[in-house]
């Protein structure tokens, strides 16, 4: 039972990058998470404060990176940390995106862009075409624009902002419909707010397209025990966080509709 992955390791933050007014990227040395695959997540312990799940945004050369949006107590404490600060890591956890060939589309919203960027880097040399659609509220919050430009061709990138300060002024789902009708895609990957994921899933279902979506749920144990992250019959931490179309179909009563709260009761999303 006891595994190296599950052992809490303390490590020191070696680098902190500001990605947007609300998002920072933290780079940590970790022997195990540096071998993670795109889609996997880790549990980050902010000593004395909390331990939270974070998608792995990059992993190589002994280092792992996570991009974190300050939304509450834990994430704000993390944002207040400086390089050299000690944190704890467990993982990597969860499954990962499958590797597709052919024409691939990635659709990211908010920090959901992070694991997709990691995936895009991996797929860049292996696919026929790599398209990226990214949305945010405003220009400042569009994450990894430069990095995405480095892996996808300009013409295959669409950005949207709600206020029109960059790219198209609309929700990320808007340009998708015509894109999916116009072009053939062998796989669609998505990660972001669950309402967005739900809409995209409806679009791919209508068109009978394959999809893999990474979901988020309240997580406590991260190892499939506590039940906090359950959606339908699945545990997001252990059976996910990446789910395919068949699985998403099984959870359609909950996807984008409800989740378990801290007390285990179902609350609307």
């Amino acid at each position, binding site marked *: *039972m*006891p*595994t190296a992955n*599950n*052992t*809490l390791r*303390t490590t020191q933050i070696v680098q902190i990058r500001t990605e947007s007014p609300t998002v920072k990227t933290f780079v940590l040395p970790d022997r195990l998470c540096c071998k993670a695959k795109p889609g996997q997540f880790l*549990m980050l*312990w902010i*000593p*004395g*404060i*909390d*331990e*939270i799940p974070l998608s792995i945004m990059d992993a190589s050369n002994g280092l792992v990176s996570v991009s974190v949006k300050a939304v509450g107590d834990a994430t704000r404490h993390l944002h207040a940390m400086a390089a050299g600060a*000690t944190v*704890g890591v*467990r993982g990597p956890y969860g499954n990962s995106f499958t590797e597709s060939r052919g024409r691939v589309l990635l659709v990211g919203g908010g920090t959901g862009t992070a694991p997709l960027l990691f995936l895009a880097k991996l797929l860049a040399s292996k696919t026929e075409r790599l398209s990226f659609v990214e949305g945010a509220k405003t220009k400042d919050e569009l994450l990894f624009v430069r990095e995405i430009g480095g892996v996808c061709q300009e013409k295959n990138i669409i950005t949207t902002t709600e206020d029109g300060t960059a790219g198209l002024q609309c929700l990320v789902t808007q340009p998708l419909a015509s894109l999916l009708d116009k072009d053939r895609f062998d796989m669609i990957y998505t990660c972001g707010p669950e309402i967005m994921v739900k809409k995209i899933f409806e679009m791919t279902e209508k068109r009978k397209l394959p999809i893999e979506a990474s979901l988020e749920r309240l997580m*406590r*144990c*991260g*190892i*499939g*025990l*506590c*039940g*906090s992250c*359950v959606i*339908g*019959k699945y*545990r997001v931490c*252990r059976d996910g966080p990446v789910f395919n179309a068949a699985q998403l179909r099984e959870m359609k009563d909950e996807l984008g509709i409800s989740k*378990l*709260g*801290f*007390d*285990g*009761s179902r609350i609307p999303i």
Partner: protein
Amino acid sequence: METNALSIGFAGLQLENPTMLASGVMGYSAESFHRIAKSGAGAVVTKSVGIQPRVGYVNPTVVQAAAGLINAMGLPNPGIDVFSEEIKFSKTILRVPLIVSVFGYSAEEYATVAKKAAEAGADAIELNVSCPHVKQTGAEIGQNPKILAEVVQQVKASINKPLIVKLSPNVADITVLAEAAVKAGADALTAVNTLKAIAIDAETMLPILANVKGGLSGAAVKPVALRCVYDIAEKFEVPIIGCGGVSNWRDAVEFFLAGASAVQIGTAVADDIEVFRSVTKGVENYLRKKHYRSVKEIVGLAHRK
């Protein structure tokens, strides 16, 4: 061998096989119970439910130790009123007994929650009088035979379903508590809950769990849990459900030999949700090889002189 070599009945419960999901593990939703049943469990026990909703503790709530886990979830639960709906729904899809684990801060509370759970359709009630990390409930009740007896009596008087009492290993002599529970009306005992433990991080010099202390589970505690079952079986005739560190058929057989009629599995679910099936299959092979017709025949055999 007939397929019912594994079936076992006790305390008014009838199980197709002697493995159960332990309380607290994937224990909130009907779909999870259903999945666990499909993974081979003979019964499922829910997360412990109280009278009011509780959000539990902040993370970290789980930390790994050598051959085990330490957890301090803080009994997060939606409260019995909300959970009753889940029980009702579960009963429409679940084909194995559903045992609802109940906790409270007083005998009255225990009784109220148990009554509501039973009314909602629970096939049995398990009293969590042994949670080692929540103050004023759990182990504080389970360590005192007088208080324990009072709780058991009141619950027993308010339900018409089998009553299982889950004991704490954090006591000097578990048979004293076992005796108090049985005399007060418990139909069966689950032995045991987790061992009170702590994890401290050398680097930050801090206790790791947000609640500081928690409960140790998994393979590390098996020798202690097994000893608790053995101790109880040595003294009384009462159905015992063994719990603590079961992860394979050999562990389960050891618990049967020590005197357990069934086993609960918690921590090992993290490794493999199909653990119920593999344990059951292994026990079945063992019985066949040893020429026993039923698991009942091996219960308590380690006590033979």
